């Protein structure tokens, strides 16, 4: 058992593929380590770049740290007691963990969509208007109407909801709720959207709609998506990263990861030998 562990550590010592990109990345992670309650480490020495207007998929078995890393990118982990992080994560070259950065404003720039659709128990309109109201994005009601409409159009939900904007958001179907959450995120005008298994609670048709939507959103936003479905990662992402036991094993262009993985662990995972 112990021998295996050492071997694994050696296997995982270096990320293979192309973790860093040429040109200016949107987000960079350098030597990121994440600890829960100091004694348990969730992420080990992760180095990776997120390119602008691309989708980075994060795959790996349960508990491999992909969601933890995702939540570090907009400092959502700050809300968890005993979670600490070392290393450097930068957004547009600026360290997001420096003292000058207000995590509240950072989260407006780096939005997040969760695994389970979580619309607020308010009307559809108020759900979308929630962020703009907080950040003063609209100065009057008609501007706010425009922001809501624009966000719902972008999220592909406008046609279905324009006649019932005052109905509760919780009354929509699961897929519609998730698109409402995406609209809500877009309304704050972020640069980056983080998605934590956005389709795992949805049926195949709703999933397809969301995937299509992500494809359209790519032109305006940088997207990182955690997913359990390798097919989904292959379908939607430009680059794909494979995590194993808190380490980033391999990052590369998606077609390379799925057709010609460099690392044995990646190959084992995507061919379904374990996971």
């Amino acid at each position, binding site marked *: 058992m112990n021998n295996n562990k050492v071997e694994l550590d050696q296997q995982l010592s270096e990320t293979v593929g192309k973790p860093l990109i040429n040109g200016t990345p949107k987000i960079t992670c350098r030597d990121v380590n994440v600890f829960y309650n100091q004694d348990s480490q969730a992420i080990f020495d992760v180095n990776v770049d997120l390119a602008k207007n691309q989708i980075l998929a994060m795959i790996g078995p349960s508990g491999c740290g992909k969601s933890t890393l995702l939540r570090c990118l907009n400092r959502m982990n700050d809300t968890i007691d005993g979670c600490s992080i070392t290393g450097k994560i930068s957004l547009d070259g600026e360290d997001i963990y420096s003292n000058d950065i207000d995590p509240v404003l950072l989260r407006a720039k780096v939005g997040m969509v969760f695994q389970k659709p979580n619309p607020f128990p308010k009307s559809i309109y108020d759900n979308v208007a*929630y962020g703009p109201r907080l950040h003063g994005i609209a100065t009057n009601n008609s501007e706010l109407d425009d922001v809501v409409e624009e966000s719902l159009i972008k999220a592909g939900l406008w046609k279905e909801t324009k006649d019932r904007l005052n109905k509760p958001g919780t009354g929509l179907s699961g897929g519609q709720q998730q698109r409402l959450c995406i609209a809500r995120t877009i309304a704050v005008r972020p640069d980056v959207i983080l998605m934590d298994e956005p389709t795992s609670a949805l049926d195949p048709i709703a999933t397809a709609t969301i995937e299509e939507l992500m494809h359209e959103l790519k032109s305006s936003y940088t997207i990182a998506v955690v997913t359990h479905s390798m097919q989904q990662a292959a379908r939607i992402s430009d680059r794909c990263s494979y995590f194993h036991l808190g380490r980033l094993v391999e990052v590369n262009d998606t077609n390379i990861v799925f057709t010609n993985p460099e690392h044995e662990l990646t190959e084992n995972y995507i061919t379904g030998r374990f996971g």
Partner: protein
Amino acid sequence: MSNLNFFIILLIIAAIVFFIGQKKAYSYSMFNGGAKLHSLPNYYGYLTTLWTFLPAFGVFVIWSFFESNVSSMLTISQFSELQQLSVDELSLALNEIKILAVTNSSSVSINNQAAAVYSEYLNHSFNLKILVSVLLALLGFFYTYLRIKPTMQARNSVEKLIVYVLFTCALIAIFTTVGIIFSVLFESIEFFSQVSITEFFFGTHWSPQIAIREDQVGGSGSFGAVPLFWGTIFISFIAMIIAAPLGLIAAIFLSEYATSQVRAIIKPILEILAGIPTVVYGFFAALTVGPLVRDFGYYLREIGINLDIEILANLTVSTESVLAVGLVMGMMIVPFILSLSDDVILSVPNAMRDGSIALGATKSETVWRVIVPAALPGIVGGFLLAISRAIGETMIVLMAAGVAANLTANPMNVVTTITTQIVTLLTGDQEFDSVKTLAAFALGLGLFVTTLILNIIALHVVKKYREQYE
């Protein structure tokens, strides 16, 4: 042999027949070369026990409930003297007979003779009751025992019987409530036959003292309950003004901001606060808060006189005041609201908090714009339950707000509430059929209906809230 002894014997018999039934089932089981039993042997034992015990016990209880009444009716039918008495006299005579039947006095009055007859009937009744119970027990036992065979579905039958037992227990609770309602309702009807409903619900003068003798003065007997309803509402209103924001804000602090260590200290302290008897709150209101409020009132009056503000200068100030009671009652309700609100706030899913924070909201924005609105129906439900409590509270008012029925909007003044009046009407030396006493029941009915409506609304609101997340 007393009722208790018989009951114990019945229990012992029930325990014994368990083993008898079980043993018979065992004798059929595979170990003894028999067929496969439908149920475990224990179930045959349970079934035997239930069939032996339940019918016998049921008849025993019902019989005991009615035997005294039936015996007295039979006794009356034997004595023409008793039959001539009026209803009230008869009930008095019966009371005496029942006492004489136990004490065995040696006088030769009619009542004493009747007592002898009565106790004889009671004796017969008891013997007959035991006999019938034992017969039923035997019948139940043999009925089950003879039917025990491998194909008998004992487990299912036991399940059915248990449902009936549970149903009976639930019925008892419901019947008690219905009994309470009717006992109050009948007395109230009696009251309203003597005092008009309009006077009671719209009259503004409350003075329940009525003349017992012809020549007595000062007993006008006026039953306008508006001052009482007003006093109740006034005090509850002040209590809620204190308790609602304080309880809610404290709950928000505890559930959203406090670390687990702080929570671990504060929560038990608040539970202790909730456990303090209301009498102790009453002391506090009467001895500490009351005088403080009075001094504050004097101070206000002085300011009024100095600055020539008429309303303040003419302020009626008393040691027993609405404000003092309202303040203390508010403090009493705070833990109640706090723990209810705390529960609903904690039950708002964490996904709501994450969703809001991920949109760049601060903690307070999240709390006030998402968490509290989401929990609002539950919080309102908690408030309504708290109001019910405030309305029903008696002791603090009795001790610190006095008993004078005043229709006033001045919080420094004395008022009284429905519950306090019920207590003063019913304590002490009272005739049970006087209007004064009956008024207490009408007040009780009013109170009951009010809190019932509030509770129904509260439960409805809380239920609606639950549906939102399911």
